[in-house]
């Protein structure tokens, strides 16, 4: 996936991603259902707080995703903003003034809020930079699995008969392979990288979406408005996109948010297993992997593990909480 590394491709992808998200939200908010959900959500403090946290992560991830040309090829905006923080020789504790070395504690070039890692890089900066991997995996995978799952789910539920049989057969087959095995197998063949990780997660991820949408479509098709649309002679495509899709879109949104948290976790686990993020890409999973042995060092190095774990935890938590809030907002009766 060399072309993914081009500067303008990355910036353009970022822009397109945000554009798509904004377009979908604006389109959704036109419907009455989304508006009432928004009213509910506005009263949900926990939901708003988690939305803000997600927003912060988005800002950090975006800063790290905007690529600028530089003398040595390219540099991200976040890197440029943090360029003033000096690089040390090796480990140093949070806010320490000397290096972490019992024998020869040399004075440091600067202060580091969360200390430095084995290569002397600032832990806080590294942790923030890793946000990018998580967001890109979540975004790219969603771009693969959501259209696939929604389209197949809608078609299975609307056409039924052999279309339904075929879709069910395919997703039963994919679901029959335990997810982690499937991911590992695909990634081993495709090789490490954010792109292949997104493809692997997309291949396993659409099943859940297709199931959900198929079920809801089967329910919706029974409703009189579909019969009315058919009686008016509207084309299948129009019924699918203008009538059915808007009525399942809120489920897609909820699944997107909750699925995003699962993807962020999966990215960390896969990177940890050594089939995920490529060498040199900052990722919480690889950071956790690298800092694992630091716990048995003397003196103990705990800040790398803690920082990456907490950053990962907070993001997944915020996504999960926000997903739950959305669910409650769209369906106040059930989501107690």
């Amino acid at each position, binding site marked *: 996936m060399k072309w993914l590394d081009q500067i303008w491709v990355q910036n353009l992808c970022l822009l397109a991603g945000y554009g798509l998200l904004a377009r979908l939200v604006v389109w959704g908010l036109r419907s009455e259902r989304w508006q009432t959900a928004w009213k509910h959500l506005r009263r949900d403090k*926990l939901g708003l707080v988690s939305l803000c946290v997600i927003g912060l992560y988005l800002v950090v991830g975006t800063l790290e995703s905007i690529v600028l040309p530089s003398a040595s090829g390219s540099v991200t905006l976040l890197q440029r903003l943090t360029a003033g923080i000096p690089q040390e020789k090796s480990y140093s504790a949070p806010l320490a003034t000397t290096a972490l070395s019992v024998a020869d504690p040399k004075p440091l070039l600067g202060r580091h809020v969360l200390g430095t890692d084995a290569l002397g890089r600032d832990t806080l900066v590294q942790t923030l930079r890793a946000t990018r991997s998580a967001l890109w995996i979540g975004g790219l995978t969603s771009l693969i699995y959501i259209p696939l799952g929604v389209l197949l789910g809608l078609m299975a539920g609307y056409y039924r008969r052999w279309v339904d049989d075929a879709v069910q*057969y*395919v997703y*039963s*087959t*994919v*679901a*029959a*392979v*335990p*997810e*982690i*095995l*499937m991911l*590992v*197998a*695909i990634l*081993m*063949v*495709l090789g490490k990288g954010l792109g292949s990780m997104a493809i692997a997660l997309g291949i396993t991820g659409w099943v859940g979406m297709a199931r959900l949408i198929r079920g809801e479509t089967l329910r919706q098709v029974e409703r009189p408005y579909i019969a009315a649309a058919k009686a008016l002679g509207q084309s299948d495509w129009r019924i699918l996109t203008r009538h059915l899709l808007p009525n399942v879109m809120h489920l897609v949104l909820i699944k997107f948010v909750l699925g995003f*948290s699962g993807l962020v*976790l999966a990215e*960390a*686990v896969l990177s*940890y*297993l*050594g*089939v995920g993020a490529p060498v040199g890409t900052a990722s919480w999973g690889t950071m*956790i*992997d690298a800092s*694992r042995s630091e*716990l*048995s060092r003397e003196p103990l190095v705990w800040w790398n*593990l803690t920082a990456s*774990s907490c950053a*990962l*935890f907070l993001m*997944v*938590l915020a996504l*999960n*909480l926000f997903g*739950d809030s959305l669910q409650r907002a769209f369906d106040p009766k059930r989501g*107690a």
Partner: protein
Amino acid sequence: MLAYLIRRLFFFVPIVFGVMLLTFVLFFVVQSPEATARRVLGQKATPKSVENWLHNRGYDKPLLINTTPGQPWHDSLFVTQLGRLVTFDLGTSDVSGRPLREIFAQGALPSLLLTVPAFLVSLAVSVALALYLVFIRNAAVDFMATFLCVALMSVPVMVYVIFGQFVVAQVLNYFPAFGFEASGWSAPKFLLLPVALMVVSGLGADVRLFRALFLEEMGQDYIRTARAKGVSKARVLLSHVFKNGLINLITLVVASLPFLIMGSLLLENFFGIPGLGNVLVTAIQAPDFAVVQASVFLGSLMYLGGLLLTDLCYAWADPRIRLG
């Protein structure tokens, strides 16, 4: 019921075929056998050694159908692979050359010793906690508990393991934090910590799910009937809600079995337990494609077996299915 099961088994045949096709495409089409050979043999591989490696494994046959005159059409890679999997001939490891059947058989026992107790304990604990939450039904406690569950869910498995291992081994200086011996009574000593960690790591998701399930059951008409009869709250839960909830729980539990594999995969690697998960992680790092390919096939068979088991349990627990 028997007819239903047989129909179900027939339904599995195309799925197993689909899985075989999927793995074949992945391991022989997306990545050609030559590429596999080169990755396994490493940089130093000569064209001769690659050819030998391919020939020894029969990977040099035509892909789908053998069109070479004088050779039978079915002497192709796909047909031979299919035939081998159908007869459970899993082949040999790419790296060590040991029969895979042997490797998997060896790994099965430690894996089962880890996952089965963990599964049963976590099921019991989460069901009990979920029932308790439904029983007290207090807004503040509910909020706290749901929040806690989501928080527990949001911690990645490896963080649980690293912190667990650190606290127990280095701070408390207690368990053997690493290694495994299956002989005699030493296995429990080694398994206690991984089992405990596995239970804790799954707790949040399970309690939340089961609580929702039992709450939904609480809203049913027959629960109202039971309460109107004067049945006490505890008995309503333990008898009426529990038995009905259990039926729905069965499907969810089997759906979570693949996650069990995932959890144990990391745990076994961490604790040096020579189970199936460890076999897989070693294979990823090697890389050993034969092991991964066979794992995919066996894993899906296990999943389908689990589905069949769900059906049986369902029928056993639900009179509406058992009696027609």
